[in-house]
C-alpha cells in the first residue's frame, strides 16, 4: 500500500468524497463525522451538516468527541430541541443523506449496533440504535462507513437495529415515504454498492493496493465484484493535509480543554 497514507486515511478521504455541495447530511459520530467535516473543509464547503443533538448547519473547527460537544452548538446556524430535530428536520424530509457508522453490517446493508448473540443474554452488548433506525429510513439516502473485517461484514447481522434492505433485500419495497436506503458503503479496503435488483452489496471499487483476495478474506459472505471493477482514486496531498491538520487540532483541543477541567 502507498506509504504516503494509511488505510484509515484512505477510508476517510473516500467517504468524504461521497458528500457533495448542497447535500444536507445528518452526521453520525466517529468516522462519519470525520469524513463529513473533511468534505466540508475540502471539495464541499457548502455541505450542510446536522447532528442529532439539534445543531443545524454546524461548522466545527475540531472534531466533536460526542454528538453534542459545545463546539457543534457554537459553530451552528442555530440549535433546536432534539424532538424538533427528529420531527421537523429528519422526519420532515429535510435530510438528503444520513451518514452512519456501525458495529456490524450484512450483505443486505442491515446494520447492527444492538448486540452480539442473544437479546436476553447477550455475548456482547452494544450501545443500541440511537438515531440510526429513523435516519436510515427518513433520509433521502444513506452512506455507511466502517472498517472491513469478518466480524464487521457478516452474512446476516445478529440483530437488525437499522434497516438496510431487510433480511431478503426487499423490506423497502412498497413502503410509503421511505428513503432509498444505503447507496454506498465505504470501508478501509473498498467501496460497495447495492445490486440494483437484489440489493446485495457488491464491491464496485478497490482501494489502491488492495486485492480482491484481501476483500474476500475480510468479508463474511461470498462477496461479489462488479464487472468493470475500479480502483479508488488515492487521497490527494491536499486532502491528506487538511485531514491531518483537522485530527491534530482535534487531539490538541480535547487534551488541552480537559486540563482546566480536572480538579
Amino acid at each position, binding site marked *: 500500500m502507498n506509504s504516503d497514507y494509511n488505510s484509515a486515511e484512505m477510508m476517510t478521504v473516500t467517504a468524504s468524497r461521497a458528500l457533495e455541495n448542497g447535500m444536507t447530511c445528518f452526521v453520525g459520530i466517529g468516522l462519519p463525522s470525520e469524513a463529513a467535516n473533511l468534505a466540508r473543509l475540502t471539495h464541499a464547503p457548502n455541505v450542510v451538516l446536522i447532528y442529532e443533538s439539534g445543531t443545524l448547519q454546524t461548522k466545527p473547527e475540531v472534531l466533536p*468527541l460526542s454528538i453534542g460537544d459545545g463546539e457543534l*452548538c457554537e459553530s451552528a446556524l442555530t440549535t433546536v430541541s*432534539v424532538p424538533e430535530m427528529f420531527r421537523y428536520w429528519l422526519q420532515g424530509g429535510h435530510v438528503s443523506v444520513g451518514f452512519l457508522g456501525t458495529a456490524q453490517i450484512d450483505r443486505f446493508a442491515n446494520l447492527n449496533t444492538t448486540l452480539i448473540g442473544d437479546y436476553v443474554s447477550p455475548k456482547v452488548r452494544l450501545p443500541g440504535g*440511537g438515531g440510526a433506525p429513523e435516519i436510515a429510513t427518513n433520509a433521502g439516502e444513506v452512506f455507511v462507513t466502517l472498517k472491513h473485517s469478518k466480524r464487521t461484514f457478516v452474512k446476516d447481522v445478529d440483530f437488525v437495529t437499522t434497516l438496510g434492505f431487510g433480511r431478503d433485500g426487499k423490506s423497502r419495497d412498497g413502503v410509503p415515504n421511505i428513503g432509498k436506503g444505503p447507496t454506498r458503503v465505504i470501508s478501509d479496503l473498498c467501496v460497495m454498492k447495492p445490486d440494483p435488483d437484489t440489493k446485495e452489496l457488491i464491491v464496485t471499487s478497490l482501494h489502491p493496493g488492495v486485492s480482491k483476495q484481501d476483500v474476500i478474506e475480510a468479508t463474511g459472505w461470498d462477496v461479489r465484484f462488479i464487472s468493470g471493477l475500479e480502483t479508488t482514486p488515492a487521497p490527494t496531498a491536499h486532502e491528506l493535509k487538511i485531514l491531518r491538520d483537522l485530527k491534530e487540532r482535534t487531539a490538541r483541543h480535547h487534551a488541552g480543554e480537559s486540563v482546566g477541567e480536572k480538579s
Partner: protein
Amino acid sequence: MAEFLSLHDAVSSYVKDGATLAMEGFTHLIPFAAGHEIIRQGRRDLTLIRMTPDLIYDQLIGAGCASKLIFSWGGNPGVGSLHRLRDALENGWPRKIEILEHSHAAMACAYEAGAAGLPLAILRGYVGSDLPKVNNQIKFIECPFTGERLAAVPSVRPDVSIVHAQKADRQGNVLVQGIIGVQKEAMLAAKACIVTVEEVVDDLGVGPNACVIPGWAVSAIAVAERGAHPSYAYGYYPRDNRFYKEWDAIARDREAFISWLDENVLNTEGVQQ
C-alpha cells in the same frame, strides 16, 4: 411554585425508592451532581429513563440504584462502552437490570408527547427494525386519513425529572441555553421536577424566545456549581473529554469503579470532583 432547596433536600424530598426518574441533558448539562447525591442517599429500585445513559447512569447502575433502564443509545460517546451498564446486562452485577430499548426519534417523541399531556407519541419510525420484537411497548397504528402505518410509543411521564440549567432567577424561572436536548420536555412531562443550576441571578437577561421555563412549572431548584461536570454547561465550562476517556478504564474494572465511587461520590458531601 419553585422552592429553593439544597441539593440534598431536593433529592430527599422528591426522589423515592422505586420512582421512575428521568435525568436529561443531551451530552450537554447532564445533572451529574444530582446523580451523585442520589447515589449518596442510597436510592434503590429506580426506573431510570434517559436517551443516552452516559456516564451518569453508568454510575447509578454500577452503584446499584436502578432496577430498570429505558434508553435509546447506551455508549460512552466517542469512547466506547458503558462498562457498568454492560456488566449489569451481561453479568447482573451488582444486580440484574431490566431494559426497555427505543430509538432516539421514538424517545424524543415520547418526551414531547409527555410534555403535551398525551398518552402516546406517533412517528414514522422503526420500519424494518428488530427493536419492536424486543420492546412490546412499540406498537403500530393506521392513519385514519391516509391508511399509512405509523409507529406508536407510550409517552414518557416520569414521577420525577432532574435537569441541570445555566441559571434561575429569584422567582425560580429557569434558563436553558445551547444544546437544549429534551430538557424542557423532560421537565414538563414529569409529575415533579428538580432543576440544578450554576447560579441564581436577578435577571435572566435573554431575548423574547429564549428557552425559559417558568418557576410555577418547577418543583425545586438547587444550586450546584459545575453540577454538570464532566459534561458541560454552555457559557460556563467545557466538556471534560479527558474524564470521559478516563472513565473507560475506571468503569471496566469493578474494583476501580468501587474505589472511584468511594473517593469521588460517597465520601464527599456534594463536593464536585
